[in-house]
């Protein structure tokens, strides 16, 4: 990209007319799992997200990267209405899951969160046994009727999360006694147990060592076949390793969305380039 084009982009950004570059939209409607159009998020008077247009495809891992405070986590949380708990937070625009507006009055947030699960930055197992941790969601929603089914569900979820072999003899031990990586996998198992359609991950490996991170990344790659995954990460290498598409956020705006390969070898936008090459923005 020549200097001239880069400057042009920057000017556009400065005057706050920003069109997302790249391919934020998915051509085939049947491939779209979630879609947001003109999504704004406000914290009180402060606007945190500015008109984000983005499609999230079925069975893809989409990574959201950007500097701290760029709004990527806020956007992620808007996708399963976790922001509802923050009183001053307001979301506008259209956000849909399978074409249905998730912010409509008809949409129950509890049901939404059962369909759009979330894994958080810090592994946060409940101070209960491993078994109870995984069974929690299923019990909450009454997904299973008897103990045997619940046992099966717990085992299946732990297996999918790649944790069953490690903990099968210690299911009644507290989940908080596991290592950080195991705890995070327990949290993933707990999320899977509710059988969501989309899993949102908010920096799931930022508290983990590289080996545990690699295990989680491998797991995510497995999960991709059954779930849609949107991940916010501070590690660009992680985004590069696991995602199919990468979205770059900057100051609350979606700057660029492209295939991860393209973003990391040849980003379209100067801001993206600056961020992923570690330059002053």
């Amino acid at each position, binding site marked *: 990209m020549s200097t001239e084009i880069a400057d042009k982009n920057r000017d556009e950004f400065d005057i706050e007319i920003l069109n997302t570059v790249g391919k934020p939209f998915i051509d085939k409607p049947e491939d779209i799992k979630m879609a947001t159009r003109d999504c704004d998020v406000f914290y009180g008077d402060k606007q945190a997200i500015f008109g984000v247009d983005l499609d999230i495809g079925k069975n893809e891992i989409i990574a959201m990267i950007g500097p701290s405070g760029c709004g990527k986590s806020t956007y992620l949380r808007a996708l*399963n209405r*976790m922001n509802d*708990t923050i*009183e*001053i937070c307001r979301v506008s625009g259209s956000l849909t899951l399978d074409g249905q507006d998730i912010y409509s009055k008809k949409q129950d947030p*509890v*049901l939404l*969160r*059962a369909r759009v*699960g*979330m*894994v*958080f930055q*810090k592994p*946060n*197992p*409940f*101070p*209960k046994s491993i078994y109870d941790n995984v069974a*929690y*969601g299923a019990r*909450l*929603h009454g997904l299973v009727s008897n103990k045997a089914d619940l046992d099966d569900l717990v085992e299946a979820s732990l297996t999918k999360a790649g944790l069953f072999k490690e903990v099968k003899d210690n299911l009644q031990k*507290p989940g*908080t006694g596991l290592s950080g990586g195991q705890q995070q996998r327990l*949290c993933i198992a*707990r*999320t899977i147990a*509710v059988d969501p359609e989309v899993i949102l991950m908010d920096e799931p490996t930022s508290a983990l060592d590289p080996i545990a991170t690699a295990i989680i990344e491998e797991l995510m790659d497995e999960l991709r076949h059954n779930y849609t995954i949107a991940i916010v990460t501070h590690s660009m290498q992680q985004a590069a390793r696991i995602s199919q598409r990468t979205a770059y956020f900057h100051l609350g705006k979606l700057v660029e969305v492209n295939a991860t390969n393209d973003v990391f070898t040849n980003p379209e936008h100067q801001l993206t380039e600056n961020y992923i090459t570690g330059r002053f923005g």
Partner: protein
Amino acid sequence: MNKSTQIVEAGLQKRYAKEKRFRLYGLISILISLAFLVILLADIIGKGYPAFQQTYVKLDVTIDGEVLGLTAESPEDKLYSASYSKVIRNALREKFPGVTDRKQKRALSNLVSKSAAYELRDMVVENPNLIGTSGSYWFLAKDDVDVFMKGNIDRNLPESDRRIKDYQLEWIDTLVAENRLEKRFNTVLFTEADSREPEQAGIRGALMGSLYTMLITMCLAFPIGVAAATYLEEFAPQNNKWVDLIEININNLAAVPSIVFGLLGLAVYINFFGVPRSTPLVGGLVLTLMTLPTIIIASRAAIKAVPPSMREAALGLGASKVQTVFQHVLPMAMPGILTGTIIGMAQALGETAPLLMIGMIAFVSDIPQSIIDPSTVMPVQIYLWSDSPERAFTERTSAAIIVLLAFLITMNLVAIMLRKRFEKRW
């Protein structure tokens, strides 16, 4: 070695000395407070320990039907109303026949507590066949005898300075020589309510009063306090001026002098709602008011300390707000909440001032049977006894303090055990 290293090295010794000194100061202050505690406890226990023993007198009593005007067939109300003190007096006179002086006669009958007559009556009522028989019975000794037996009256003092005169000493010596005076464990202290006679005064009334009052306080303050704290922390709208106002007022209430709560209780509960005065019910209500701010503040702090990640985890799995709070936040905050509750309850247990205002200072000689019986509470009882002129009440005051402390420690132990159980689930 560069310059700054040299400077650092030069100052190092001084710094270490400073640290050492500071540690020493800390140690000294802890030792001082420990010393005070030990002195206090030693004093109280030293003074209160004798109260757990009481002197008894053995008398040969002839339950003379003629003296009493009774037969074995007399109806029960007759049995009750007969003058048993005469029998006791006769027994004493028989024992010491030489006494003729009126003053000495009265002194003689004062060797034995007035309760002796009641004890005798109870025995007779239970078994009317005793009428006409005679036998040896142990009776409570009068407080002066008790005080003397415990060595608190010096017989070498001139007679005019002694509460026990020479002739009384003689009787006591005779009784001791015949093994008719004996110190036993003081069951009266734990089975009886307050009395004007020190040897008959017990703390059971106050203990039960305190227990009922604490029960009421606990049952009201804990749920209300936790509910209020939960609402304010989890559900109340943020940055709302009404909520802020409530918060400020709760914090202020914690600093309000407790007697004000007593006035409030008097005005609102007794005068307006007509709750019976001097009862554990109204006492509990007033103490609830006083304890609430403490519990609310402590509970809010505990709830605030629950990591937000726990709430997010539950919400993210599709738990509703209420489910999140009740299944995760409150159990995790429970140790902190319980600590706050213990502090509040301990405060309430030791509180006197507000209870004075609602009449719990009244002299109550019956053990309260329910929350609407007039009663007093431990600290008030201690206050009452410490105010009494009789020498024997001094040791009872200390004994009551010991019992109060034991009550407090038991309460705290239970709470700590509860807390440990909740903590385990982390």
